[in-house]
């Protein structure tokens, strides 16, 4: 590893080692995932006191839990005694947490409740001492139900960190007639042999679908619509055909926007008249009626005219407001990544809208999808290719020096095929990796 990490990122190119060097990976877990606001989960996953959900910050196992007071906590999933994992199930409801090793029992907020054989510990052992509690992640904040946590005790708040990306989260929630969304419909967990950064680097890549997804584009374009369908395949076929839009479409109509801290979104992509509304389903008309009755015609029109595709919140969150998808990237090793994907139900919307959300999820996020499987192949091949020192530098220069200023403090690419959003993520990477974070690192 080079001592000066800034050597790895240069104008329009990046060194392959940031995707392959295990020492850099370990440093990322400390300096990026140990500092940044990381997406944990949604409040609807822990509706009642005692509801919990097990996840990770980087590779650190944590539990999202609603305690007896109704407060949302994020606690390191480790027993204060011998360090074993306390919560073993992915999700559930509990009145307390108990370690299976020596029976240390904790309140839902992580405070120690009881210890068997307490007389055997040193005289100053005190179950009320915070040092005997499961460790809290120091900062936990929600934005409109989306829970983030940061291991840094100090630093900018969540809304400062998100900046203009709050408007993408707004878009996801504003699409619900009742103004609320909830996690529903299960989860995909897909895996690949490649670095965690490759995932977000692909999700706003407008130049790859026409090529990478050629097999599903061709298969969908040749598919007869006369054949029997129960309706669930409609969204999938439309999306696969849409992926076949010519380069001129991506260069003239779609846009890419980037913001501080590595965030970005692909916008002006699909609009509802091309995909959902084109189904001419009564459910969609019912949805618009529900929206108009709750929010009025003007607000409904404003919401439906937002045409954002994937929104990336660096380092590990990507979501898609139009079809209520959300993906969380979990780094496992320098060359292994697992992504968990979730769906949201729009409260107050007709049930058919959620069925479209599920159909869409199966297409773009499904482990057996006709589309995603080719993306996973790309990540694997990048992983294999970058393991070679044959070529040391990776080009990320498409659109370099043609960026345009954005009214909300960011920069946009001159068109959607610009790699500006990758350069923007690597700027954030460099900032996290080279700043001296000692002052704000959590006390361990």
């Amino acid at each position, binding site marked *: 590893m080079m001592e000066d990490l800034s050597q790895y990122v240069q104008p329009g190119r990046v060194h392959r080692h940031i995707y392959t060097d295990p020492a850099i990976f370990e440093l990322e877990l400390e300096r990026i995932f140990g500092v940044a606001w990381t997406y944990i989960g949604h409040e609807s996953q822990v509706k009642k006191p005692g509801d919990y959900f097990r996840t990770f910050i980087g590779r650190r196992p944590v539990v999202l839990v609603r305690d007896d007071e109704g407060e949302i906590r994020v606690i390191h999933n480790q027993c204060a005694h011998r360090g074993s994992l306390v919560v073993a199930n992915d999700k559930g409801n509990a009145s307390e947490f108990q370690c299976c090793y020596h029976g240390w029992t904790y309140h839902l907020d992580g405070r120690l409740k009881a210890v068997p054989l307490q007389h055997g510990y040193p005289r100053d052992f005190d179950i009320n001492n915070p040092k005997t509690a499961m460790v809290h992640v120091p900062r936990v904040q929600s934005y409109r139900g989306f829970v983030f946590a940061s291991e840094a005790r100090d630093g900018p708040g969540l809304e400062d960190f998100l900046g203009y990306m709050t408007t993408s989260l707004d878009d996801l929630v504003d699409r619900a007639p009742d103004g609320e969304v909830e996690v*529903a*419909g*299960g*989860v*995909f*967990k*897909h*895996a*690949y*042999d490649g670095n965690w950064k490759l995932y977000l680097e692909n999700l706003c890549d407008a130049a790859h679908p026409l090529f*990478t997804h*050629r*097999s*599903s584009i*061709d*298969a*969908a374009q*040749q*598919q*007869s*619509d*006369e*054949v*029997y*369908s*129960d*309706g*669930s*395949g*409609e969204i*999938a*076929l439309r999306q*696969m055909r849409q992926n076949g839009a010519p380069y001129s479409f991506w260069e003239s109509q779609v846009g890419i926007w980037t913001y501080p801290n590595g965030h970005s979104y692909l916008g002006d992509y699909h609009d509802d008249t091309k995909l959902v509304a084109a189904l*001419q389903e009564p459910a969609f008309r019912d949805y618009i009626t529900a929206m108009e009755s709750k929010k009025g015609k003007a607000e409904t029109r404003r919401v439906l005219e937002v045409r954002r595709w994937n929104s990336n919140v660096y380092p590990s969150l990507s979501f898609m407001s139009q079809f209520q998808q959300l993906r969380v990237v979990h780094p496992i090793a320098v060359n292994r990544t*697992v992504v968990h*994907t979730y*769906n949201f139900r729009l409260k107050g919307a007709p049930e058919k809208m*959620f*069925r479209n959300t*599920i159909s869409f*999820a*199966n297409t773009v*996020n*499904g*482990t*057996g999808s*006709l589309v*995603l*499987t*080719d993306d*996973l*192949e*790309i990540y694997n*091949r990048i992983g294999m290719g970058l393991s070679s020192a044959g070529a040391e530098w990776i080009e990320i220069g498409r659109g370099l020096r043609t960026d345009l200023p954005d009214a909300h403090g960011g920069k946009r690419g001159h068109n959607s095929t610009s790699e500006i959003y990758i350069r923007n993520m690597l700027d954030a990477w460099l900032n996290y990796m080279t700043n001296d974070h000692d002052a704000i690192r959590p006390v361990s």
Partner: protein
Amino acid sequence: MARKPKVVSKATSTRSRRPIGSRGRTARAPARDSLDIHHCEQFLLHEARLLDEGKFDDWLALFTLDAWYWVPSEPDQADPIETVSLIYDDRRLLETRVRRLASPRMYSQEPRSRTSRIVGNITIEESARNHCTVRSKFMMIEYRREQQRIFGGTAIHRLILAGSRIRIAWKRVNLVNCDAPLDGITIPF
């Protein structure tokens, strides 16, 4: 096994490509005049062989023209419309899936997988004169690009007797590790 509401989609295109499975170039599925366990077993073994040999067009031809094929993402998943599925294909999407498998530009099958399946523990769960529901266990080894992985689980087939041919009206595949982190799935079970 919840069935889904049947809604025949509106034709929205003038494209007229015949369904792959209706071309008459059908698989050599055994001809039968009844559905006893022996016939069902022969049929399942035949299906497994077509898949192992990569004869996906012939495999598709085993399905009825309104069939569905489902690999749930959760154990005991109630339905494919309220919860995501590793695969949920109505007949039209199943055709698209099979057509893609033949594409030279399906990069996730370059190089191609080789598979080897064993089917066993076959029982008839429910039967009538010309249809039955068959439960079986399977193990499938998939080898691709220096890596081998194993899938196993339970398959449930709804078989119907169409003339003298057995056809699959629906097939559900419950993978033992359906909710695990999984690398991409490209070859049907």
